[in-house]
């Protein structure tokens, strides 16, 4: 860093640009962003892969289908020779992108194509739920912290109750109930099989994670001189919230987005694994792991590949999230080191 000799002549670049500059200098954060971009691009190209390379429909079972390995035509599913001969053994990884690159699942569906499509679902749910959590959490936290009094007491107690519930249990409880009939909340209707159901559930359970720290931050802000000055000069409350309070808490909420996305993706995959998350015919990385459960000892690729992708994506999100936090909240870096 160089000291600007003509200080005063140059304008300060502003907090957002400083943060962007910090983030661009953070090599591990950049690498994570690149990994994420690759994953997103790959899943965006899912239909291209399925239609033009693998020539398969990953949502249709191909129980009696055949494929080509080393120039020979082989069945996709082989009746198992061991045990009672009841099960089937799908074809394993061929490492040939045109013919079952990662093998098939027990319905003869192309695992690679399903992974790409599943990634779309997982990323969509993770990101949307995280965004929704951050927006809701900010709104709740700001309202509770700024309003104070009875409203704050009620909101805080409700947050306490959600907080005291182990998150996975709460998510599973809600999923089990809502999956039977869908969600009807006033004019809002979500079908039981809709992807918006896990989004809504995951977004709801993590609201206290955002709302509680933000409420604390707003409690401190409310006593700052410039807020008092705004109140004293007769500014209307919505204006104070928009012009004085929000600009101070939005960076904090933004810091949570990548970390929340990672958390939401892990939660989605766990719910899907327990078959109370994404419902067939949709696939997500979690449902593919569940599909692979019965094949764990014969065709481990079906289980391992989606798990690796989840781990890779969430690890990238976590590293990126740390970078964003360091960039947006220099105080955290001072306190936390590096």
């Amino acid at each position, binding site marked *: 860093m160089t000291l600007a000799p003509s200080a005063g002549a140059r304008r300060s670049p502003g907090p957002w640009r400083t943060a962007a500059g910090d983030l661009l200098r953070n090599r591990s954060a950049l690498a994570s962003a690149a990994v994420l971009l690759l994953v997103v691009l790959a899943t965006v190209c899912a239909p291209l892969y399925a239609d033009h390379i693998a020539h398969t429909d990953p949502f249709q079972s191909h129980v009696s289908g055949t494929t080509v390995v080393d120039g020979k035509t082989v069945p996709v599913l082989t009746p198992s020779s061991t045990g009672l001969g009841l099960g089937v053994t799908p074809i394993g990884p061929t490492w040939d992108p045109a013919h079952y690159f990662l093998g098939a699942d027990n319905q003869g569906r192309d695992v690679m194509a399903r992974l790409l499509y599943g990634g779309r679902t997982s990323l969509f749910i993770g990101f949307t739920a995280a965004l929704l959590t951050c927006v809701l959490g900010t709104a709740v936290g700001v309202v509770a912290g700024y309003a104070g009094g009875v409203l704050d007491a009620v909101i805080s107690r409700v947050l306490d109750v959600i907080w*005291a519930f182990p998150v996975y249990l709460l998510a599973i409880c809600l999923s089990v109930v809502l999956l039977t*009939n869908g969600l009807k909340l006033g004019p809002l209707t979500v079908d039981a099989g809709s992807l918006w159901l896990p989004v809504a559930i995951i977004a709801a359970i993590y609201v206290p994670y955002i709302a509680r720290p933000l409420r604390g931050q707003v409690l401190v802000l409310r006593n700052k001189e410039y807020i008092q000055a705004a109140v004293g000069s007769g500014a209307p409350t919505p204006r104070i919230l928009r012009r004085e309070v929000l600009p101070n808490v939005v960076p904090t909420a933004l810091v949570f987005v990548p970390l929340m996305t990672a958390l939401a993706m892990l939660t989605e*995959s766990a719910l899907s694994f327990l078959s109370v998350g994404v419902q067939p015919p949709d696939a997500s990385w979690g449902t593919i792991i569940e599909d692979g459960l019965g094949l764990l000892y014969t065709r481990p690729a079906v289980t391992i590949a989606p*798990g690796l992708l989840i781990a890779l994506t969430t*690890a990238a999100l976590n590293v990126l999230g740390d970078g964003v936090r360091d960039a947006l909240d220099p105080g955290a870096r001072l306190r936390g*080191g590096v």
Partner: protein
Amino acid sequence: MLAFALKRFGSALLVMFAISVLVFLIFFATPGVDPAARIAGRNADPATLAQVRHSFGLDRPMPVRYLLMMRHLLIDRDLESFVNRGSRVIPQILQATPVTLSLVVGAALIWMTAGILMGTAAATLRGRAADPLIMLVGVVGVSLPAYWLGEVVNLLTQKQLHDSLFSWVPPPGYVGLGQDPGQWALHMLFPWLTLALLYAGIYARLLRGEVVTALNEDYVRTARAKGLSERRILIRHALRCSLIPIVSLFGLDFGALVGGAALLTEVVFGLPGIGKLTFDALQNLDLPVIMGTVLYAAFFVVLANALVDILYARLDPRARHA
């Protein structure tokens, strides 16, 4: 201090009451959910449905049903499962508790030891190669899906390396501690390690930050000026203060895990603990069992929360008046 503790326990009780009402409402008052239809099975005729409704007391008003359920659960202690009639809820929970406790206590010992060692090492080796390496382990830990890690461990120990390296690993399942302590430990070893790996990293990362901050504090400078050895400064001064947030996080995590958050690990390793019991009950919509396990879970979480707050208040008098 006593007044604070009493107040804290009072609000803990209120939270538990609210949770029981919330669970009751989720399962009985969500529009479109009909436990009777679940019990009676698919395509049951209206007469059967009405009979089921009456025999399970589902035709009574909501508050009466709530109070009756609570009375059976807490006072008469004879609440019965909807699905397996005659099977009582409380003995089921009591039977599952030692399994979950075995899993969580063992894992907690491992992850606390590993987390504290790794965090302290990373903080003292700051700027050297070991530091980012240790932090990488931390990121991997928080990024792995718990159940998937368990599956991979099963794959390695039961199949891929079972004939060579892991021939001594028993098949997944649970053996009671009183039954055979050696087999108990052997059966729990990989579940412990799997669960611990998910937490050790978070703790190491958190502790590293705290120790780094503490090493810059005035009291550490004073200790250095007094001529204390670096080792003594680290252990007696910096680490001691840094462990406070770790202990409070531990309280919350431990409470949640004992309360059923270890569900995924239990399912994957075939351990019949609280999490597994809750999950099975949820799949059958077995409300009395769900009510029992959820209240049990909430009890541990709320208790842990309260203990952590009281501990904090003891350590930091300012918190008492917050």
